C-alpha cells in the first residue's frame, strides 16, 4: 500500500517514529498520530466490516463520533471497541479491527483507577478557539479555572487548520501561545485527554481522564474520573459535521469533509488524490482549497445553486449537483452524480479515491441537553441549537452555531469573563451562509438499501421508511424500531439525519401522534424560534413536519464511553465498602475466630479451637456462658447520643415503650417501629443525664436508625430540642457473661460494688478500672445469664479485651462469637431484628406486648387499630421442637399443617400450592436443653402451642412440636447470678 503521508506538514513529531501492529502487519507512524491517522497514512482504507451486513468500511471521521473504525487493543490492559480516531498512537500497540462487536478480556484488571473530587470556579469544556479564548479570559479574572479537553492536543477544530491566521499568527502557534499563558497561570489547570461525559444538576461535571497508555500503568492510575463541582461552566464543545444519505455512502473512501481536512492539516495525510467534495454548505470550500493546495485534484459538487463564499482556485465547482451513488468494489473509485433538482436524467460518473461529504453542522449540545437545556431548530443554520444556557453556564463557539474563528474568540472571551456574547444571533446564520435542506439523495436503482443513516448500526433510509410505514411517528419510536443511534456514537452520526429524513417521510396529519416534550421541539406552528422542552402542550396537528416539530431523542450521559472499571475507581477489592474492624479484632484473629459480615462490620462468628468444627465450638462457647463465664466483643452495636432538652420526649415518641421517666443512671430496652407498626430496630438506651441519652441499635441498623431519628426530628417534630451524634466508633464494648461474670468484673473494677444489691439489673455505673481506664459498666443481658457490659473509649478497646481475658483466665473465661450469642438469646426468645423479624412483624407478634405502651403516643401506634392487627391469622413467634431432637431445621424452612403435608418427599416444586402457616427464623442445637430447637413465626402460633406441625425443607417434611417461644429459664432465675 502506498504511503499517503506528505513529506511535510501536520503537527506530528516526525522525528519520533512509533511502531504498531494492526492484525498481523506492523506499521510505522509518528508521535502525535492517532491510530486512524497512522492507518490512513499507511494507505489502509478498510477497517473492520460492518456489524450485520458485513460491508467493507473505512474511517469516516476524525473524532469521537466515528462509526466504523474500532480496534481491540491486545495484551496488557486489552480493551475492545476503541475508536481508532481518538486512540493515541503508542509504541508497540497491538490491535485488530473490530466489526461492531467487542470481545471482553476476562482477566482481573489489576491496574489502578482513581477518582478526584474538586471544586473549580470556572470549568471550560473544549479547547478549540472558543474554549481557549474563554480560558484565557477567565484566568485573567483571577478565579480558579479548569480547562478540559478530550483530545491529547489543544486546539479543537484549529488542529485541522494549522495554517489559518488567528490573531495575526498561524493557528498552531496561537494555540501554543495560549497554552503557554495558561500553563504559566497559577490559577489554571489544563486537563488533556479528559472527556467531560456527564453534566448533572448544580453544575456537577464528571470527566474521564486517560492518563497512561494501554500497555503499561507507568506507576500511576491508568484513568481518573474527575468529579467537578463548578461555579460556572463554559461549554465550548463545538459541532459535528453531518453526512448525507445517498447510495453507497458507507463505502471506504467516503469521509466527512472536515475529517479529510484534519487528516491533512493535523497529520500530514492526504487521504485521497482525486477528491470529490459533496456539500450542502460553504464549510467545505476551505477543505477543497486545502486539498487542492497540496496537489489533489478536487471537484466540488454543491447541492445549492450557488455558494456564499469565494470559490477556491484550481477547484472544479459544480453547483446544483449531487452524488447519487458511489462506485467501487471495496473502496471508492468513483461517484455517479446528477443534478440536484432531478432534471438531469443521465447520471454522469466521476472518478475519485476520496469522497468528502458535508451535509451541514450539528452543534454538539449533548452536555447542554443533559441538563435539560433547551434547544430549538434553527432553519438557517439547519441544526438544533441551544436557545439559552442553563443556569450558571455559558455557551461559546460552534455549539451556538458561531462558525468563524474570530467570532469564536470574542464569544469565548465573553463567556470566560462572564459577559454577554458580542456575537449577534442573526450574525451566525449570516456568516455560515445557506445550507441546503437536503438529507437524502434518491439512488439510481430506486431502492434505499445502501443509503446509510447509521452505518455503525447498519441502518439505512429503507429502515426508516419501513418504520414510518409500520406506524412509527416519534423519533424515539423510529430509533427503537431501527436501532439508529444506539451504537457507540449514540446518534452523533445518525441522530439528526434521521430527524431530517423523517421530515420528508411524514405528512402534516401524522404530526398529531407526535408527542410534545421532546428536546428541540417547537411548541407552536413550526415557527423558527420557539420555546422548547417543557412538554405539556401538544404539537399542532397542522404543523408541518420540520425537525423542530419532531424534536430529538434524549441526550444522556456518558457523552463518550467510559470503562466500567474507571467508574469503580478505588472502590474495588478490599476497598469496596471497606470492612469495619473493632479495636480487638487482631486479638480475635489470634484466637482463631472466624468472622461473619454484619452490616459493614466483621464480627467474630465463633472461635474454633484445635480440630473443632463450628458446632463443637459453639457448643463449648454456649456451655461456658451458661455454666461459667464467657466474653464477647459487642462493640459493633450502633451507638447514638441523643441530647437536648426534649431528648426524653423524643425517645418517648420513637420507642413503643415509655422513656420519659427513665431515671438517670438507668437503661431500658426499647423497640422502635415504623408507622405501620412493624418492628424497625431495638436496643438498650442509657440515660446519662436529664437531657442526655446513649441509644444502642442493632449492628446493621445503626446508620438506618440515625437517618430515621434525623428524619423524624427534622421533618415531623422540628419543634423538639434534640440532636443526634453517632458514637459507635468512640466506644468499645465487651460483654462478660455467665454465672461467674461477677467475679471477673469485680477483679477488673475494684472500685465498683458489683453485688446483686449494689448493682441492680438495668443499672449502669461509671468507674475506673484497675488498669486506670475509665469505664461505663452496665448490667444487662442478652442471654438471660448474669452479665455485664463494659464500655470504654475505643482507644482502649484492645487493652480492655486483654484485661478481661487476664481477669478471667483463672476461671477459664471463654471468648465467644455471634453464633453463640444467637443461640443463647434464642433460648430466651430474644428476637434479632432482621432475622426473626422481616418488616411484617409487630412487637405483639413477638410476644412482647409488654413493650408496647397503651398510654402514650408513639410512631406506629395508630396502626395497631387496623383490622389486620386485630384479626386472627397473624404470625407469632413460637419455638419449634423437631421430634427428632438431633435435627436442626434449616433456617428458612417453611411450616405447614400436618394435614397439608404430602405423603412423601418432593423432588421438585409442588404440583398444587401447599398452604404455609409460617417459617423458621432461627434454629440451633441447644446445650441448655440438650436438643435442637428453632424459633418460627407461625400463624396464630401461640394458640397452637403443644400442637404438632410439619417443617418443610429441601423437599422433606418433618414433624415438629410447637412450643412457647422461650425454651430455657422461662422464669428468669439466672439473670442476677
Amino acid at each position: 500500500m502506498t504511503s499517503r503521508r506528505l513529506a511535510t506538514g501536520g503537527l506530528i513529531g516526525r522525528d519520533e517514529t512509533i511502531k504498531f501492529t494492526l492484525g498481523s502487519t506492523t506499521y510505522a507512524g509518528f508521535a502525535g498520530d492517532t491510530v486512524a491517522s497512522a492507518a490512513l497514512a499507511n494507505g489502509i482504507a478498510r477497517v473492520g466490516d460492518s456489524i450485520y451486513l458485513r460491508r467493507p468500511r473505512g474511517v469516516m471521521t476524525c473524532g469521537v463520533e466515528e462509526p466504523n473504525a474500532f480496534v481491540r487493543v491486545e495484551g496488557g490492559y486489552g480493551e475492545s471497541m476503541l475508536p481508532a480516531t481518538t486512540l493515541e498512537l503508542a509504541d508497540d500497540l497491538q490491535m485488530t479491527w473490530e466489526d461492531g462487536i467487542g470481545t471482553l478480556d476476562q482477566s482481573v484488571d489489576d491496574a489502578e483507577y482513581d477518582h478526584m473530587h474538586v471544586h473549580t470556579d470556572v470549568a471550560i469544556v473544549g479547547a478549540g478557539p472558543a474554549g481557549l479564548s474563554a480560558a484565557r479570559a477567565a484566568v485573567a479574572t483571577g478565579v480558579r479555572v479548569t480547562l478540559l479537553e478530550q483530545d491529547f492536543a489543544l486546539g479543537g477544530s484549529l488542529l485541522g487548520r494549522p495554517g489559518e491566521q488567528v490573531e495575526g499568527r498561524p493557528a498552531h502557534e496561537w494555540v501554543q501561545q495560549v497554552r503557554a499563558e495558561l500553563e504559566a497561570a497559577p490559577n489554571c489547570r489544563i486537563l488533556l485527554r479528559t472527556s467531560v461525559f456527564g453534566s448533572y444538576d448544580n453544575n456537577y461535571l464528571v470527566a474521564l481522564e486517560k492518563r497512561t497508555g494501554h500497555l503499561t500503568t507507568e506507576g500511576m492510575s491508568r484513568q481518573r474520573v474527575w468529579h467537578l463541582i463548578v461555579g460556572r461552566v463554559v461549554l465550548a464543545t463545538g459541532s459535528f459535521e453531518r453526512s448525507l444519505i445517498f447510495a453507497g455512502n458507507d463505502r471506504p473512501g467516503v469521509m466527512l469533509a472536515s475529517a479529510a481536512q484534519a487528516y491533512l492539516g493535523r497529520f500530514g495525510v492526504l487521504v485521497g488524490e482525486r477528491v470529490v467534495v459533496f456539500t450542502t454548505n460553504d464549510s467545505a470550500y476551505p477543505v477543497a482549497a486545502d486539498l487542492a493546495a497540496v496537489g489533489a485534484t478536487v471537484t466540488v459538487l454543491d447541492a445549492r445553486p450557488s455558494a456564499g463564499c469565494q470559490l477556491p482556485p484550481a477547484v472544479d465547482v459544480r453547483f446544483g449537483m449531487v452524488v447519487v451513488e458511489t462506485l467501487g468494489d471495496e473502496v471508492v473509485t468513483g461517484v455517479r452524480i446528477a443534478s440536484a433538482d432531478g432534471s438531469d436524467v443521465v447520471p454522469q460518473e466521476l472518478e475519485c479515491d476520496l469522497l468528502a461529504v458535508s451535509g451541514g453542522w450539528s452543534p454538539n449540545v449533548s452536555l447542554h441537553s443533559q441538563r435539560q437545556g433547551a434547544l430549538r431548530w434553527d432553519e438557517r443554520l439547519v441544526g438544533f441549537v441551544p436557545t439559552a444556557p442553563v443556569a450558571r453556564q455559558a455557551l461559546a463557539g460552534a455549539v451556538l452555531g458561531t462558525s468563524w474563528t474570530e467570532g469564536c474568540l470574542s464569544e469565548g472571551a465573553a463567556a470566560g469573563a462572564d459577559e454577554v456574547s458580542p456575537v449577534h444571533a442573526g450574525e451566525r446564520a449570516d456568516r455560515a451562509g445557506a445550507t441546503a435542506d437536503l438529507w437524502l439523495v434518491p439512488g439510481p436503482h430506486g431502492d434505499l438499501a445502501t443509503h446509510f443513516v447509521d452505518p455503525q448500526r447498519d441502518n439505512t433510509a429503507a429502515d426508516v421508511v419501513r418504520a414510518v410505514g409500520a406506524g412509527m411517528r416519534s423519533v424515539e419510536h423510529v430509533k427503537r424500531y431501527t436501532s439508529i443511534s444506539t451504537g457507540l456514537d449514540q446518534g452523533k452520526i445518525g441522530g439528526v439525519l434521521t430527524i431530517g429524513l423523517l421530515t420528508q417521510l411524514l405528512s402534516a396529519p401524522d404530526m398529531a401522534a407526535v408527542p410534545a416534550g421532546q428536546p428541540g421541539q417547537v411548541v407552536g406552528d413550526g415557527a423558527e424560534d420557539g420555546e422548547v422542552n417543557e412538554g405539556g402542550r401538544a404539537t399542532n396537528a397542522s404543523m408541518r413536519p420540520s425537525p423542530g416539530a419532531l424534536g430529538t431523542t434524549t441526550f444522556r450521559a456518558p457523552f463518550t464511553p467510559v470503562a466500567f472499571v474507571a467508574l469503580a475507581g478505588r472502590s474495588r477489592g478490599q476497598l469496596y465498602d471497606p470492612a469495619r474492624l473493632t479495636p480487638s479484632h487482631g486479638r480475635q484473629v489470634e484466637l482463631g475466630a472466624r468472622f461473619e459480615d454484619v452490616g459493614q462490620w466483621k464480627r467474630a462468628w465463633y472461635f474454633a479451637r484445635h480440630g473443632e468444627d463450628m458446632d463443637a465450638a459453639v457448643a463449648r462457647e454456649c456451655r461456658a456462658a451458661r455454666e461459667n463465664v464467657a466474653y464477647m466483643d459487642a462493640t459493633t452495636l450502633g451507638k447514638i447520643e441523643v441530647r437536648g432538652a426534649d431528648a426524653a420526649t423524643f425517645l418517648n415518641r420513637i420507642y413503643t415503650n415509655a422513656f420519659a421517666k427513665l431515671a438517670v443512671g438507668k437503661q431500658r430496652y426499647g423497640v422502635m417501629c415504623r408507622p405501620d407498626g412493624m418492628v424497625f430496630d431495638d436496643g438498650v438506651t442509657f440515660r446519662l443525664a436529664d437531657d442526655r441519652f446513649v441509644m444502642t441499635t442493632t449492628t446493621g441498623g445503626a446508620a438506618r436508625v440515625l437517618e430515621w431519628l434525623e428524619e423524624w426530628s427534622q421533618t415531623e417534630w422540628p419543634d423538639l430540642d434534640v440532636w443526634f451524634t453517632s458514637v459507635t466508633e468512640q466506644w468499645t464494648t465487651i460483654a462478660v457473661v455467665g454465672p461467674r461474670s461477677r467475679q471477673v468484673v469485680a477483679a477488673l473494677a475494684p472500685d465498683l460494688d458489683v453485688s446483686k444489691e449494689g448493682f441492680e439489673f438495668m443499672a449502669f455505673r461509671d468507674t475506673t478500672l484497675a488498669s486506670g481506664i475509665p469505664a461505663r459498666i452496665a448490667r444487662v443481658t442478652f442471654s438471660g445469664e448474669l452479665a455485664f457490659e463494659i464500655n470504654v473509649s475505643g482507644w482502649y478497646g484492645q487493652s480492655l479485651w486483654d484485661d478481661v481475658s487476664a481477669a478471667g483466665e483463672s476461671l477459664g473465661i471463654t471468648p465467644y462469637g455471634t453464633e453463640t450469642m444467637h443461640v443463647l438469646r434464642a433460648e430466651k426468645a430474644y428476637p434479632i431484628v432482621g432475622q426473626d423479624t422481616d418488616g411484617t412483624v409487630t412487637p405483639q407478634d413477638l410476644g412482647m406486648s409488654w413493650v408496647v405502651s397503651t398510654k402514650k403516643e408513639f410512631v406506629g401506634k395508630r396502626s395497631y387499630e387496623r383490622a389486620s392487627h386485630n384479626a386472627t391469622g397473624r404470625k407469632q413467634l413460637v419455638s419449634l421442637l423437631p421430634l427428632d431432637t438431633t435435627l436442626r431445621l434449616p433456617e428458612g424452612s417453611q411450616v405447614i399443617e400436618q394435614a397439608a403435608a404430602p405423603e412423601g418427599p418432593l423432588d421438585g416444586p409442588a404440583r398444587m400450592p401447599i398452604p404455609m402457616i409460617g417459617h423458621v427464623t432461627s434454629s440451633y442445637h441447644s446445650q441448655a436443653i440438650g436438643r435442637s430447637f428453632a424459633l418460627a413465626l407461625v400463624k396464630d402460633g401461640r394458640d397452637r402451642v403443644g400442637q404438632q406441625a410439619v417443617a418443610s425443607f429441601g423437599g422433606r417434611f418433618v414433624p415438629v412440636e410447637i412450643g412457647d417461644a422461650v425454651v430455657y429459664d422461662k422464669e428468669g432465675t439466672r439473670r442476677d447470678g
Partner: protein
Amino acid sequence: MKQRDLPEHPEFLWHNPEPSSMYDVIIVGGGGHGLATAYYLAKNHGITRIAVLERGWLAGGNMARNTTIIRSNYLWDESAAMYEQSLKLWEGLEDELDYDIFFSQRGVMNLAHTLQDERDSVRRVEANRLNGIDAEWITPEQVKELCPIINIGQDIRYPVMGATYQPRAGIAKHDWVAWAYARRASDMGVDLIQNCEVTGFEMDHGRVTGVHTNRGTIHAGRVALAAAGHTSVLTEMAGFRVPIQSHPLQALVSELHDIIHPTVVMSNHVHVYVSQAHKGELVMGAGVDPYNGYGQRGSFHVIEQQMSAAVELFPAFSRAHLLRTWGGIVDVTLDASPIVGLTPVEGMYVNCGWGTGGFKAVPGAGTAFAHTIANNAPHPLNEPFALDRFETGALIDEHGAAAVAH
C-alpha cells in the same frame, strides 16, 4: 438466535387514529400494563371500543427503561400467584402475539453474600417450591457452573455464599413486548392515541364518565388508570389518593460484546443486576435514588457504586464501556406490592405501584386488570392487591421480607 442475525419488527405495528368522542373503556397510560390490559379486554372480554391514551410516545415510560427481568420466585403467596400466572403467560406469549419478543428463559439468580441473605434466600426458595414455583438454592460452585464469568473467590469484599436460582426465569425485550401488545390491540380495533395527556375527569354523581385531554374531552363508560408513577397525579384529580412514592431508578448499557454472560445475575447486597441482551450489550441496573421526583434521571454516584459491584463480581466487565445511562420513575408503595383493583370512584380502576418490578407482571396483571374492568370486580389474582389493604393493614410486604427488587 445468532448475535448478528436477529429478527426484525413486523412490517406494520399500529394505526394512529384521531380519538373518537366516546369509548366503552378508556385506559390512561400506554405503558406495558395499559397496552396489555387493552389487549386482554379485547381478546378475553370482547370489548373493543377502547382507547389507550398516552401523553407521550407509546410505551415510552418505564416500559422503555426497565432491565427486562422476568421471574416469579416472589416470597408471599399472593405475589407468587400473580407472578407465576404471568410467567406461564410469558411462556406462550410469542405464539399468542405472533411476535419475536426475545423471551429467553436463561434463568435468574439472586446472590447471597451474608448469612442473613442466605436465610432469606432459603426461606424464599422453600416457600416458592411449596407454591409450585421452580426455585433452587445453589452453592457458589453451582453459581460458577451456570455463570462461569462470576468471581466466587474469597478475595472480594462480600464473597458469594450461594444463590437462589429460578431456571424458568429470564428476560425479554421490553419495547418488543409493548409493541406486540400494541399491534394486536390496534388490530382488534383498539385506538392507540399518543400525544394525549389526561388532564382531568368528567364525573357524574360519583361516577366517572369521561376524561379531559389536550386533544379534547373524551367520554367513556369506564376509565382504567395505568399511569405508573403519575397515577397519584391522576387520582388526585379524581379526588382520592394512592400511597405511592415516585423515585428515580437508573439503568445502563455497554456496547456490544461477544456473548459471555449466559444468565441473569442479581445481587441485592452489593446492588447490581446484569444480563447480556441478545445483541450483546450488558444491561444493568442499580438501586433507587432515595429522593422523590418525576425527573427521569438519577444521581451519578449510584452508577459508580453499581460499577464497583459489577467489576467485583465480574472481572470480565472491567473494560466494558458504559455507553448510555438513563432513568425511569418507579412508583413504590410502602409494601412494594402493586395496587390493582377498584377505586372509590365508580367506573374507575387502578393498576399502579409496580415499583421496580412490574415489567414481568405485564401479562398476568394485564389479564387480571382486564377482568376487573370487564366485571367491575377483581380477579382472584388481584383481589389481595386492593387499595384498601393500606387501611386494613393486610400488606404484602415484598421488600422487607424478600429483600429483592425487580
